[in-house]
């Protein structure tokens, strides 16, 4: 202890052991990880033309990672999905703590291999905001992301994520390429009128980065979490704001169904002409409707709430006074479809799934069988008899 050189040698040796393990050891174990096929053959070789994962991010997304880092997003957002497994008596691993997956933050735990191509790995250590490791899987469109980046409170009223107005050019009137920001009343006067923003290149980079964040492939070391066998009744546990498909680990086929429903639904929503719904003419591409005349679908409890009510409106239309997001509207909506009321069960299911999961909405998907059930239950109703809001509110169960 008295000789400073021996003393230094001693205390540096203890440090060196830890360094050998955490730096040298871990590097030897993991350092040569590289992209791999989703499944390997029995002898650990991969098929010659197998697609390799993870994939490299597009250049714009890589620039976005720099912006994400510079703004300090990592202080509140982690990028790692955890999954705790235990072995049961037969040695099969069972998931015991999959809350990240159940929350919809991923389909499996994040693995070291997922990060090998990233220049800046930002795992983070505090979740004041949600985990973003799989943010690109949430099907949010660019406009939603820009709105959220510009002012999170315009989409999620309770969010404490700070707005980033410095990434946008703001104006009162719509312009070429501008995005409408929904007004909201809680946060000061200037936010009650509608505003339009044009994203800067930096905002576009960040959006590209967020959309590129996805671990949506299986790895040989870890497949997706399989659906639990006793999958509970979705209605009983349905929760505001989290779509079922993402809350419950589902096989990837169900995920494909959803994305095909979303794209088919978008077509029905926007197509004006035979086979389309023409919804876009009144409710607008933004889902915000038009002030006074047509109610918004974005953020509406009528859209996100009870499915039966929504299906009924889609079958017969709606007339009279209705309150949406605290604003009263008085107009009429004919049964969608051209000619009127001509949409099939599948089309209605698709378009309803689309509106329930766009513009910041996220609610469970609607299936064609649900539509046909409702159609059967009201088959005696005269085809021209539109619903009124009062009728729907009293007949159906309260919105969940």
């Amino acid at each position, binding site marked *: 202890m008295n000789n400073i050189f021996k003393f230094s040698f001693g205390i*540096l040796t203890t440090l060196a052991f830890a360094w050998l393990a955490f730096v040298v050891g871990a590097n030897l174990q993991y350092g040569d990880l590289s992209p791999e096929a989703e499944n390997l053959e029995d002898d650990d070789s991969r098929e010659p033309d197998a697609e390799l994962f993870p994939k490299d991010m597009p250049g714009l997304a890589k620039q976005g990672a720099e912006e994400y880092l510079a703004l300090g997003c990592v202080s509140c957002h982690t990028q790692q999905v955890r999954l705790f497994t235990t072995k049961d008596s037969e040695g099969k691993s069972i998931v015991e703590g999959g809350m990240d997956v159940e929350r919809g933050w991923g389909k499996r735990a994040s693995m*070291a291999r997922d990060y090998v191509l990233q220049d800046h790995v930002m795992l983070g250590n505090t979740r004041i905001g949600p985990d973003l490791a799989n943010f690109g899987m949430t099907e949010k469109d660019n406009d939603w992301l820009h709105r959220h980046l510009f002012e999170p409170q315009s989409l999620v009223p309770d969010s404490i994520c700070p707005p980033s107005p410095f990434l946008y050019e703001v104006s009162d009137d719509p312009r070429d390429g501008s995005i409408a920001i929904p007004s909201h009343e809680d946060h000061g006067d200037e936010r009650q009128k509608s505003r339009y923003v044009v994203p800067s290149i930096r905002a576009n980079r960040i959006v590209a980065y967020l959309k590129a964040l996805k671990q949506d492939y299986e790895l040989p070391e870890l497949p997706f979490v399989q659906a639990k066998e006793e999958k509970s009744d979705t209605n009983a546990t349905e929760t505001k704001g989290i779509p079922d498909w993402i809350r419950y680990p589902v096989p990837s086929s169900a995920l494909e169904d959803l994305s095909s429903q979303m794209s088919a639904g978008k077509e029905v929503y926007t197509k004006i002409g035979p086979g389309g719904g023409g919804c876009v003419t009144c409710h607008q591409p933004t889902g915000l409707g038009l002030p006074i005349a047509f109610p918004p679908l974005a953020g509406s409890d009528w859209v996100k709430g009870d499915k039966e009510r929504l299906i009924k409106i889609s079958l017969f239309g709606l007339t009279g006074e209705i309150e949406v997001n605290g604003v009263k509207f008085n107009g009429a909506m004919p049964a969608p479809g051209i000619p009127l009321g001509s949409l099939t069960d599948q089309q209605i299911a698709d378009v309803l799934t689309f509106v329930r999961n766009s513009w910041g909405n996220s609610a469970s998907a609607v299936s064609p069988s649900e539509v046909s059930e409702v159609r059967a239950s009201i088959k005696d109703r005269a085809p021209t008899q539109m619903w009124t809001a009062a009728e729907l509110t009293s007949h159906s169960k309260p919105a969940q």
Partner: protein
Amino acid sequence: MKDTAEQVIDRSAKTVVSFFVASAGLWLLAAALLAYVAAAKLTDPFFLSSCEFLTYGKVKVAQANAFVYGWGGNSIFAATLWILARLSQVEVRGRVMLLFSGVLWNLAISFGLLGILDGHMNAHEMLEMPTVVWPVLFISYAIIAFLALVIHRSRKHNDTIAPQWFILASLIWFPALFLIAWNGLEINPARGTLPSVLSLWFGQSLIWLWLTPMALGAAYYIIPTILGRAIDKYYLAIFGFWCIAALAPWSVVHHLEGGPVPMWIPAIGTVMSIAMIFPIAVASTNFHATAFKDIDKVWNNLPLRFVIFGTISYTLSSYIGVIFSLPDVAKLTQFSIINEFHFNQRVYGFFSMIIFGVVYHMLPHITGKEISKGAKSFHFWTSAFGVLILLLAYLIGGLTHGVLAQQPSLDWSSSVISSVQPYFKITKYAFIILGFSQLVFVINVWKVIFPNPFACCLASSSERKGKTA
């Protein structure tokens, strides 16, 4: 009258130690301001939101760096130089070099923090300052550490005692950690998540192997010096020291539980964290068995009161740290604001409180001026109260945050984060209290270091008052 040997040493240390203490105080205030801004931004997202330099993420990171490198670094230099000089019974030499390196160190941190606010942050925990300032930090530190080692090497007595081990270890560990991190993160960077493991290890080790041994060494020095009695069960100290040296570098990685890293890393961290109860028990026995024999004196002597607050805080925080490293608890609280609890508990409740005590004990010796007891007492009570509120808010808020985050059925912002909101508000007020407390500390310190400007200011202001009256 001839000066005593102590007075000669104190005079040799005066300029240098005053410089480091004064700059440490300014960094403390800067960190307090940043801490308030960060806390205010959590309670009101629109607070300063249009200013790109002050996003929450940047301010949070800048605050931690200002606190650890600015306040921690400068105060470590001051305490190290003085305690080593006193224990070695030699004068502080190379004062110009020390001052020069001190200026470099502070400039490097200033540029580093501006770099962070300007958007040039690194993704490495506690090394977020832009890479260009790292060499300056390292060189200035190396010069100061070298000159401190020179003091130690020319000591009058060959035998060393506990405060010297801890302080020297802290002095040597920091550059070693820094070089390891520098090599693994920038010179030969590994791919994927490995740099994250390394930077987490560095960030946590910085607290465990730089701040902690320094504060423990200072406590081992101050307690017997002021009480005038030997450390109780002193023979345990060497065991405690080597336990920390052997276990602490391993124990810090349990934060990675369940993360995308080799599984043995968090597992080893957990085992070693639990083993840390031994060194904690040793330090706790040494300090408290000694202090509680003379509890009246501890209570009446403010520097000692600060130090004992710090050692009690160390014991408590370390045991709480052990509990939170157990896998079942870690899963629950891993990503919650409990991390803030651990950071503030160690860096404020433990390290800073001990350093406050050291500074209050040291300054009257080197400047020959007393700090008024009322001012010190005010500082103690506001600090103790503020840090208690802060830690309770982070602890209860962290548990709430962690438990609610495990319920997938609860909506994230409207249920989970809304439930934590009240605790963010409390921390905001706690940071205001602590800010005042730190302002009092800085005024106390600056008043004895630079008595003249203050004296003439006070005189002229009282003259003006007299005239207006």
